[in-house]
Structure formats: C-alpha cells, structure tokens
C-alpha cells in the first residue's frame, strides 16, 4: 500500500527537487521486521515442570514492538469512516429523523437509520436492543443514525446536521421504583422485572427465632465502566458473492455471528467474523455494538467501512457493571455463628437485558458468601431503567455481593466484639460443606487461605498491621 515514488536520476533541477520532495512525503512504513530476532522454540525439558517456570506470552514481543495490529490500525483501500449519532435523551418517542442535510454534505457517502436495518433487534438473551433506535429511545446512549464519510472528521460533522425530533417521555431512573408494579414499563407492555431468582435452604424464620441477635444492613454499589484502553471497533467489507467479512474487537464471535445473521437478515454462512487482537475486554466486548451498522453502511456504499467508538461513547453506549442494591438480614448465635440469612438483591439492568440473566444468577448463588448458613433465603430481581445498559463484567455480579456480605460480616463482628478474622474462621465453608444450592464442596481451603493471609500481612485483630 506504500506509494513510494521512484528516484528520478535525470531531468531538470526542478524535477530533481520535486522528486526529493516526493520522497520526503512518502509514508514511512513501520520498519518491516526486526524479526525474527531469535526463534522462540521452548525446549521440551524446560517446559516441564510448569510450576515455578516463568511464562512469556507468545504475543508479548509484538506488543512491545508496537507491531500488534488492532482494528484501528487496519486500513483498506477506499475505506470509509462511520460515526453514530447518539440520542442524548433518556426516554423519548422519535417523531422524525431528517438526514437530508447530512447526506448533501461533501464527503458523506451514506446515512443509515433504524428503518434501514432488516431486523432491528438483538441481544445475547432477550432480543430487546435495537441496532439503531427507530421509534423509541430507551437510554441516552442509543444510536439514532449513522454516517459513513471519507474522513472521521466529516462523519462527525455530519452527525450535527442530522435533525431528530423527539417527544420526551418520563424516564424510569430508580431501580427500586422500577420494581413497583404501578411504574410505567420501560419496554411496555413487558414488565420492568425481566429476570427473577430465588434460592431457599432450611427455614429462615425458625433460624431468626433461634438467634441471639439479628442484624440488618443495606449495601449499594455503583455502575462501573470497563474502560478497555482500545475502544470498541469494527470494520466490514462485502464481496461480490454477497458475503460479508467483519473484523471486530468482539470476544464472542459465534454469538456475534448469530446476532449479525438476525439483524442483517442473511444466513450465517454468508457472514465471516474475524476477531482481531483485543486491547482489553473485561466482559465489555461480549456482544455486538456497531457491527451491523458498519455491515449495512458497507453494503449501501460498496466500500469497506470502519467504526471506532470515541472515548465518551465507550462510557455512554457500551455495557457497564450492574449497580446492586443489596438488603441483608442475618441471625447469629452469641458466639458469632451464622444461623440464618435473608437477602434481597435488586439489579439495575439499564435499558437492555444483555448478560443480566447470567449476572443475576451468579450474584444470587454467591450472595451468602463463603460461609456455612443452614437457613438461607436469597432472592434477586433485575429491572429495566432508562440508563446505560449493564452486562457482563469480570465476576458477573460476584464482586458486588462480596462487598455486601463482607461489610455485613465486619458490622456483625464489631457489634458482637469478636475479631473479624475469628468470626470468619468460625463460619467458613469446610471440606464437604453444602453450597447455598446444596452442592457438596471439595478442596475447600478458605480457612487456610485466611490464616495464611492474616499471618503474611501481620493481622493483629484491629485492622492495622502489627
């Protein structure tokens, strides 16, 4: 792709000066290869035993040389750049979208709206998310139109020329309000509670009745964005046989192919998804985002189209970690033994389902903590709100409940005057313990881990180092 001009040896002085000038203008390609420096073949004997061997990553050298190609490093001849217009309003009815002025701009090749999408809904479980909002806006990060232009700057400018008329609706922003039956449905006529799970073990009422004291606490966590250093990006190109190739930062390409087949309305066999090196995922790149948009724009224009999220879009229009409201009630004996625990979790699902089902399940199963509790009742709800959608993020709900049950445990220890370490050792799961879902647990080393950790950082009972 280099346009290196040949050196002109003869000609007038002016011609020679021009050729030197052109050489200076020639793109400086990355040095082709300081490779191979040495062939990296691990010797069999060095590989075993693996324990205590330092592992070097096979891609580490390319990363360090700056030679790893992420999607934004790709260029295809004739490629266009796409940008998505975001709604900027939490809940609204779309009255009209006027794209005429944007289409007339020099350098703009095509504009796409929700009406151009063959099937405008997708999602990893519930198909509740539009590719581009066409009649309703469910959260401010919703895309309402997309532009393909010869430069990113022209595409960005064209977004401002797209006029969208909204009829604002009252947004549902509080998950506890969303839980109430009289609250208007975010996705009416569907109810706001879109997943629910209960885990029951023993008899909590009897457990509380037998308890020396009963403690209650409510814990909340906030929404967290993955912030991968590499923003979401995708690039689509069609061939004359009607096959589309999509380069994407997607972590789950098989699922992505199914969603693409649905939204584009073509068989999966016509879709090739190439997962490029991902510059950080953390759960945030588990579902398609702009892939159908670039595919449809590429089809409309007959040219390859790339779309890379801006950093603000990364915050407003990708998934986030579920904020949780966690209500804990725990009955304990005088010695600090946990006798009964009742938990209610409310997950703020945001505008779309995404991976809420998985997150809700895992949060609910793990909500009791690594403790033996004979009488348990855990209940979890996930609700729609007109906020940034929540989805998969490292731990799928586990870190949120961990914050709640460990904070609760500290409160109990303090009130009973017991060392926080001692109360945990007293209650921890042991070899053969039953999990909240009555699974028999093996290789349980919670107590050993706690003891070792306490010893290593010099735990002396009051939280400070000895």
């Amino acid at each position, binding site marked *: 792709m280099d346009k290196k001009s040949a050196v002109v040896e003869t000609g007038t002085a002016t011609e020679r000066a021009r050729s030197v000038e052109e050489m200076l203008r020639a793109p400086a390609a990355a040095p082709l290869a300081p490779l191979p420096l040495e062939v990296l073949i691990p010797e069999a004997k060095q590989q075993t035993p693996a324990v205590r061997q330092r592992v070097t*990553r096979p891609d580490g050298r390319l990363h360090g040389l700056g030679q790893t190609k992420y999607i934004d490093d790709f260029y295809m001849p004739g490629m266009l750049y796409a940008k998505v217009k975001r709604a900027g309003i939490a809940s609204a009815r779309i009255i009209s979208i006027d794209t005429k002025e944007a289409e007339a701009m020099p350098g703009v090749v095509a504009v796409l709206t929700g009406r151009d999408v063959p099937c405008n809904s997708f999602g990893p479980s519930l198909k509740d998310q539009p590719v581009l909002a066409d009649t309703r806006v469910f959260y401010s990060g919703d895309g309402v139109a997309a532009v393909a232009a010869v430069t990113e700057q022209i595409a960005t400018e064209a977004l401002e020329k797209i006029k969208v008329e909204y009829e604002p609706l009252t947004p549902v922003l509080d998950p506890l309000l969303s839980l109430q039956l009289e609250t208007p449905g975010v996705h009416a006529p569907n109810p706001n509670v879109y997943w629910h799970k209960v885990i029951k073990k023993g008899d909590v009422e009897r457990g509380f009745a037998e308890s020396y004291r009963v403690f209650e606490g409510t814990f909340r966590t906030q929404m967290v964005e993955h912030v991968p250093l590499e923003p979401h990006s995708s690039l689509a190109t069609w061939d004359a046989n009607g096959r589309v190739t999509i380069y994407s930062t997607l972590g789950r390409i098989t699922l992505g192919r199914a969603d693409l087949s649905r939204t584009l309305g073509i068989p999966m066999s016509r879709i090739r998804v190439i997962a490029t090196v991902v510059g950080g995922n953390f759960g945030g790149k588990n579902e398609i985002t702009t892939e159908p948009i670039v595919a449809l724009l590429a089809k409309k224009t007959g040219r390859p189209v790339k779309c890379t999220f801006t950093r603000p879009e990364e915050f407003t229009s990708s998934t986030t970690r579920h904020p949780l409201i966690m209500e804990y009630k725990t009955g304990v004996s005088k010695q600090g033994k946990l006798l009964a625990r009742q938990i209610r979790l409310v997950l703020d699902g945001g505008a779309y389902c995404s991976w809420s089902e998985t997150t809700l399940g895992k949060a609910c199963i793990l909500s009791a903590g690594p403790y033996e509790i004979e009488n348990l009742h855990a209940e979890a709800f996930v609700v729609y709100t007109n906020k940034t959608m929540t989805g998969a993020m490292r731990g799928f709900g586990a870190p949120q409940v961990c914050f709640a049950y460990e904070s609760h445990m500290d409160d109990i220890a303090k009130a009973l005057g017991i060392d926080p370490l001692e109360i945990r050792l007293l209650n921890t799961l042991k070899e053969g313990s039953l999990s909240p879902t009555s699974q028999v647990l093996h290789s349980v080393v919670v107590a050993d881990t706690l003891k070792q950790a306490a010893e290593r950082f010099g735990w002396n009972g009051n939280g400070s180092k000895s």
Partner: protein
Amino acid sequence: MTKVTLTVNGEARSASVPPEMTLLRLLREEFSLTGSKLGCDVGDCGACTVLVDGKAVNSCLMLAGQADGRDVVTIEGLATMERLHPIQKAFEDKGSLQCGFCGPGVIMSAKALLDENPDPSEEEIRDALAGNLCRCTGYAKMIEAIQAAARLEDARPAAKSA
C-alpha cells in the same frame, strides 16, 4: 493545509496536513506508524506517548504543525534489525504486557525516563508512568521490567541510542 517537516525515527519526513491534524494522526495516518495508539484522544491514557526532542509527549495533544522541525521517536524507532531495545526485551521477558494496547506508550515513557535517569528508584518509575493507564492492571510487572532494563542499559550503554 500545513506543511510539516520533521525527523521521525532518525529519518526526515514531510507531509501536507490539515491544520487541525494531531501529531498522533500524522504518525498513524500519513506515516503508517500505527504503534502509537489512540485510546482517549484527550491526553488521559498515554497510549499515544512518543518522544519529541527526547521528552515523553501525548501525541494526541500536540498538533502536527507544532512538531515541525522537531525530532520524534516512536515505538517503531526502538528496535533494530538485530535486536530489541533493552526495555522491549525486559517487557517481553517479564511478561509485562497483557492486552498490549498501552504497551507502546508505557515503553516510550520508560525510555524517556531511563534516558534522563539511568538508575531510577521505584517511586521515580511510578512517577514516570503516572500518565500511562493500563486497564489489565499490569503495573507491577512493568515496573519490574523497567528496573531490569535499567540494569541492562547500565551494562550496555550502547543500547541507549534509539
């Protein structure tokens, strides 16, 4: 259009660019040097760090025109056909990079530090990396690698030339 002439990795380069083009886009789009990454475009993440006249700079915050007549070194300018730069070697040996997206920026910040201070303390290394974000949270191994590279550079001062 603005005409920019600068030295990139030891070679004279020239380009005619729109006045609003950043140094980062000049390197990536005009010169095909895609090792410097666009992470945030507002100077927060440091994935675009390059050396301008020996100083670590967020190339997304510098206009291409401001780099006129300057000496720019990018990640592509560190290794030679024969060998990796000691910092790159140390990063590889210590497994310091995970997804790798922040790597070129981190390595350039480390180079700026070691060029000025061949034997930095851990705190000085942390200070030098303050403008480079890593979301894979791999800072510990990066610091280890930079310390190892400092020792290597001491042993082989010739390696300092970029």
